[in-house]
């Protein structure tokens, strides 16, 4: 696990049709120590996905620096695992081969990467689905595979952009419980983007509130772990903190 550090990061999009520049992010600075879980929340269009896409190396940044373990980011790389809202599983690969894809790219032999993949699938309770194709799975199962695929590649930092936004409410809570458990077991460094405030608070050590391209607030979450929804739904400290963050987001 490594630290993730954003220093005076900015992003200006050029609108081809209007022929004008549009600044989506100004001067974002954010430090995520190794093994910390940080959620970023904010109203639609405030630049959450833009941050994640720059950290992942999918789009270039306009100013400032992105450092992973002190090294500047240049393009996508396997040190930063990404979990997508649309799951982005390879439809032509079985679940096992999807999870084994990262190790395969590293040249790990078939038998060994199958073993790695099975171990990670077991962690998410997906052993029975190893030989199925993604389109044969429910949305919740597909996203479990998405998370496990990123983890099996042992990234230094895990990046997630609204990973649970396209599954139903029941499944979402189960997935949040599972992600929380997995984080507690393995302590990856996580940058988690969401617009769901309770989700952000439930999962994170810190919640960063974004507003119109800058950081509005950085709220620590001192709620003890392990965290499970069964205990936290009725927890006063949790509810109070969620309301506080929600108020910040609505003022943003």
């Amino acid at each position: 696990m490594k630290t993730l550090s954003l220093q005076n990061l900015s992003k200006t999009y050029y609108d081809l049709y209007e022929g004008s520049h549009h600044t989506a992010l100004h001067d974002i600075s954010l430090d995520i120590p190794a093994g910390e879980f940080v959620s970023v929340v904010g109203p639609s269009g405030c630049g959450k996905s833009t941050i994640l896409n720059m950290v992942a190396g999918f789009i270039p940044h306009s100013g400032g620096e992105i450092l992973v373990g002190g090294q500047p980011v240049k393009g996508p790389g396997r040190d930063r695992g990404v979990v997508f809202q649309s799951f982005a599983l390879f439809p032509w690969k079985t679940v096992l081969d999807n999870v084994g894809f990262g190790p395969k790219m590293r040249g790990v032999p078939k038998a060994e990467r199958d073993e790695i993949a099975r171990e990670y699938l077991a962690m998410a309770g997906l052993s029975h689905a190893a030989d199925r194709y993604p389109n044969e799975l429910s949305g919740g199962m597909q996203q479990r595979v998405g998370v496990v695929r990123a983890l099996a590649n042992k990234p230094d930092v895990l990046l997630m952009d609204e990973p649970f936004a396209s599954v139903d409410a029941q499944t979402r809570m189960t997935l949040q419980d599972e992600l929380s458990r997995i984080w507690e077991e393995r302590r990856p460094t996580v940058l988690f983007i969401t617009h769901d405030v309770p989700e952000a608070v439930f999962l994170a050590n810190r919640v960063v509130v974004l507003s119109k391209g800058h950081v509005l607030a950085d709220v620590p979450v001192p709620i003890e772990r392990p965290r499970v929804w069964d205990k936290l739904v009725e927890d006063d400290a949790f509810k109070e903190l969620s309301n506080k963050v929600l108020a910040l987001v609505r003022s943003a």
Partner: protein
Amino acid sequence: MNALLPLWSFWVRTSRQWPVLQTLTPFVPVVLLWQAVASWGAFPPAFFPAPMDVVRNFGTLMYKGILPEYLSDSVSRLVAGAAVGMALGIPLGLLIGLSRRAYVALWPVVLFFQAIGDIAWLPILIIWFGFGLTTMAFVIVYTVIFPVIFNTVLGVRSVKIELHRAAQSLGAPPWRILTEVVLPGALPNIVTGLRNGLGYGWRALIAAEMIVGTSGIGFMMFDARRAGSVTEIVLGMIVLGILWYIVDAWVLAPIERATGRRWGLTQ
């Protein structure tokens, strides 16, 4: 009504067991109509042969070995042409689909040459290469290549950007993205392109055989015209239809379904 029900269920069961029945049944009225018109006697048999004349002619040509030889000539030309068309069309389609620059440079040219239909090349091809194999090879490759290019480009573009990004984040270098993401993602479209290309190519080949051929089904039909054998012409037409049906329904369509459907890329 109820009396017909067991009959209907018998038909459903047997036709499911023998799919060939399902294919053949629609032709029963066609053949009956044909026979009826022939026995009506308004046209002389030399002009309008009856079904049995054609069947007899089929027997003779099979016995003499002419039909099998011509058939294998035509089919092997189609297969060779398709192979070359794919070998050129798929890489070109990948290039155009993946590279903005290649698209800008090549697309107008591709469209221009596609507009000049295969047969429109024949006059100049005959001057360049004469009557024969080279000319036919050119025509069939030319016909197959465009649907393959267009569908490959379409297939490459249909691969979602998230899949490229996911592969990159998992550490895939560009050439592995090509083999692990772009090619399989484009495969159902490539097969569709091949299916269309072979369909056009088959027709173009028969036309080319008529004009420049010295063997093959197209040649056989045109030669029969010279000899005034309508029966043989009709036989050639029927062979064309049956052969294409077999290739398309039994070979190409199942491949197309097997790729797309299994992965949920098509319904």
